[in-house]
């Protein structure tokens, strides 16, 4: 006889539904996924490159800081979410901030596509959220199930 593991066994259904809603409300669950959109996206305009920014895990879902490009807010780090932007070729700095600021500097060439993953690490009071540059192949697998949260 097999036994399934039911960690919420005994929890009143209404309370379970409330907890589930609270958990999922912090994640991107609507909007097209990267896998759905990837082939439909037009290439960046001539002279521009494209930067995808995504957060593939739900760890620390309550922490969703703004993401900045050269100190201008461009979106939020939503768990299981992604967004992208086309920008002229050049030098850029992507940063996030909770109790501490973390940044990533990168170059962008015309037609180039870059993938930036937002990770989370333990902090003193809240998690530290940091951007990291990811290889194309790894990123395309990592981001596939993430939902578009804005562009």
């Amino acid at each position: 006889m097999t036994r399934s593991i039911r960690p919420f066994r005994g929890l009143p259904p209404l309370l379970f539904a409330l907890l589930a809603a609270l958990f999922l409300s912090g994640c991107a669950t609507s909007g097209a996924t990267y896998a759905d959109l990837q082939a439909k996206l037009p290439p960046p305009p001539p002279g521009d490159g494209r930067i995808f920014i995504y957060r593939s895990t739900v760890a620390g879902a309550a922490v969703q800081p703004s993401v900045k490009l050269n100190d201008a807010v461009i979106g939020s780090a939503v768990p299981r979410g992604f967004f992208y932007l086309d920008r002229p070729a050049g030098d850029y700095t992507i940063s996030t901030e909770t109790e501490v600021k973390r940044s990533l500097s990168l170059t962008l060439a015309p037609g180039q596509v870059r993938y930036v993953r937002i990770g989370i690490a333990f902090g003193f009071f809240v998690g530290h959220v940091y951007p990291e540059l990811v290889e194309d192949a790894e990123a395309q697998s990592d981001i596939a199930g993430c939902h578009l949260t804005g562009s």
Partner: protein
Amino acid sequence: MSGCAFDVSYVTRVPTTFEPAAPNGPNWVLQQPQSIGVGSGFPTRLRQGTHWQRAGTIPQGDVFRTGDQIVTVEASNTFEAMVVLRDNTLVGFYLPVEHSFVAATEPVKLPIQQGAQP
């Protein structure tokens, strides 16, 4: 962020001047994987078989880039980087966004094959 208590890992950046090289300059292939420290506790790893092309020069040496892997210098913050060689020895990294040089903790003689075609 300077002076922030959470910036526990940092690298010393020296401003430098980059002179771009003409296309089709010297190139080489890395014959063995390498790990190069910059004093931050997060070494930069270079993969075996990666092909490198000269991008330019700085006073500290010749600057090479690759399209075969992402190269970053990592501390509390992360910087995209290119490698800097002098006499086939990796002496540090050039940070193109910051226009600065980060020295390797210990220069490393690289096992490279010169003039390899991509």
